[in-house]
């Protein structure tokens, strides 16, 4: 069954998938990697983003990407609010790790149920002219439904990378991860910086959600399938390393795609988690750890 065409296509499909995974995982990488906030509710915010895109798409006929972009400020505000609660209840008292985890578990449930009560349990899809179409370059076929998310994921990675490395606030966020005391001595308020960063992390979920619903149907409890994946990617990439996260997302995408093309899709997910387990056992800091 092996052929060069198939291999080429599998790799391309994997890269496309990886680009999308990156978009979903960047928020985790920032929150978990840079801020040490174990936000396991991130995937549910992604689903929330999907529903925002769905609502805009069905009522106004808006393109999902545009809807995702429009909603980023709302998600930013949401992130700020969640972080405020988190900070005041846990971080300030130095009890973040375990209890914070459970707090986010609770948030996950609450958002999921609110979506359930609002939209019911049906799978939802969006409409866009390019969904279901594809281009063919030689032997390689590329589906727009996957190409667009990949490109947006790349754009998001680049934007976040530039923001973190080139702007004052971005550098401050990096600094907060290293040494918040030093930052305070320099006259910046670490809490403000962390709030900003967390808001940003949640804001990426708005776009990622739009991408998710573009690829396939979405229903509220789907977020759970992503918890493992996004953490796997964030850890694999080396926490807080934006470029590393992107590369890890691509690796996972390609591994999944290759497995499902050549070995049998049944094992795709298990193989990618196997890669994670192996990485954790051999090099816990991830492939590109700090």
């Amino acid at each position, binding site marked *: *069954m092996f052929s060069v065409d198939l291999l080429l296509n599998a790799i391309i499909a994997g890269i496309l998938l990886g680009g999308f995974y990156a978009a979903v995982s960047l928020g985790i990488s920032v929150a978990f990697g840079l801020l040490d906030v174990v936000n396991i509710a991130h995937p549910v915010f992604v689903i929330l983003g999907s529903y925002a895109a769905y609502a805009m798409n069905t009522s106004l006929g808006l393109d999902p990407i545009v809807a995702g972009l429009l909603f980023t400020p709302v998600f930013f505000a949401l992130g700020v609010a969640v972080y405020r609660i988190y900070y005041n209840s846990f971080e300030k008292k130095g009890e973040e790790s375990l209890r914070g985890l459970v707090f986010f578990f609770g948030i996950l449930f609450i958002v999921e149920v609110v979506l359930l009560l609002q939209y019911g349990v049906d*799978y939802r899809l969006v409409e866009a002219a390019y969904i*279901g179409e594809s281009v063919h370059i030689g032997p390689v076929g590329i589906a727009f439904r996957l190409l667009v998310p990949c490109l947006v994921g790349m754009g998001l990675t680049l934007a976040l990378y530039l923001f973190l490395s080139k702007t004052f606030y971005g550098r401050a966020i990096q600094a907060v991860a290293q040494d918040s005391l030093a930052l305070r001595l320099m006259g910046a308020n670490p809490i403000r910086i962390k709030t900003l960063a967390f808001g940003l992390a949640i804001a990426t979920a708005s776009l990622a959600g739009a991408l998710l619903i573009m690829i*396939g149907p979405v229903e509220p409890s789907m977020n759970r399938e992503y918890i493992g994946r996004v953490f796997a990617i964030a850890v694999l990439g080396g926490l807080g390393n934006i470029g590393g996260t992107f590369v890890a997302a691509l690796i996972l995408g390609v591994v999944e795609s*290759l497995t*499902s093309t050549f070995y049998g899709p049944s094992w795709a997910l298990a193989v990618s988690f196997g890669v994670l387990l192996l990485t954790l056992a051999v090099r816990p800091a991830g492939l590109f750890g700090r």
Partner: protein
Amino acid sequence: MMRPGKCRTRRWSWIGALIAMVLVAEAWAPAISAAQTAQPIRIGLGMALTGGLAANGKPALMSMQIWAEDVNKKGGLLGRKVELVYYDDQTKPATVPGIYTKLLDVDKVDFVVSGYGTNLIAPAMPIVMERGLVFMGLFGLANNEKFKYHGYFQIMPAGPNPAVDWSQGFFEIAAKQTPKPTTVALVGADAEYPHNALAGAREQVKRFGLKIVYDSTYPPATVDYTPIARAIKATNPDIVFVASYPPDSVGMVLAAHEVGLTPKLFGGGMVGLQFAAFMTKLGPKLNGLVNYDFWVPEPTLKFPGIEEFLRKYQAKAKEAGVDPLGHYLPPWAYAYVQVLGQAIEATKSLDQKKVMEHIRTNTFDTIVGKVQFGPNGEWATSRVLQIQFQNVTGTDIEQFMKPGKRVVLYPAQWKSGALIYPYAKAKP
């Protein structure tokens, strides 16, 4: 300040006394007529109102409630009102034993019927068997194979040998084409139903002397189906049989389009393509697909009562935010309690044994047609339809309410149109 207040109090107390009298009178009224209406007949069930199967569970419950309303409007069963007692099983099999013992031991319902789906019927089986109860099943695949319980009756028309009969039509249609297709690709999700359907399909492949060139499953959480579609395409099969759940059905249809997977016959066991949400979103991409179904608005399947039911259902569905068409599960959810109701009426009894015996030996006229159960509690003969999507244009929902879009190809008795073959020819 005090006096007007007091005054008002007195006036209020008068009104209060009046209301109380009315209430007492109301309370008496049923007691007077208790001779005829007595206690309602209570039917208990667990249903997936949250979790993975809720998208079907909710409409199913709604349909049963429509049945109860219909029955009660006509004076109930045996002169008694019908009441449904239901709990949410959350699509978790572990909740089912608790729910059914609660229904039977605490609520003391007169009858229990199953929730939706194989996984949620199974845990209730030992409980109803221990007590020798009638148990109407709603869309369970081969639940009774191991138990051979004589009180179990399952409404999904999968036939006496569910897993195999499921794809009978699909492969029979394939075998009739000239030149006869020879190679088959089988693909499906890693879950209970798809695995069963694939096992049945493998049998059919053997029976019709075909050759399997691809046989694989994928995890339900798969995001991208294009690698799978491509791997199938590389084996160049004549027939692609897919056994999938809603999200992956959509994924497979889209992926097949994108990679240009065009076998001669495509579809078979894809769950989800019967729902409005997916039909309207996929639109013309469905054209040519041959898939199983149980009821479609074709002239050959206009059973008495079905249209009236769908009218009621569709009016309610909008409000509840569930599938607006209601062609897939709802008629059957109505029918399975309809059978129970008819049996109670006919035997004039709530005795489990008598009702059980009646259901085993009789044919029932329901909104899904004549229903007769075989010895293992499945339909005596299979009525799994194979339909083909034809001439779907645009994405409006109205077209799917009319005949001609989902043409029945199989079984011959219900056939309403001809197959467009090969698959590619039906595509725009």
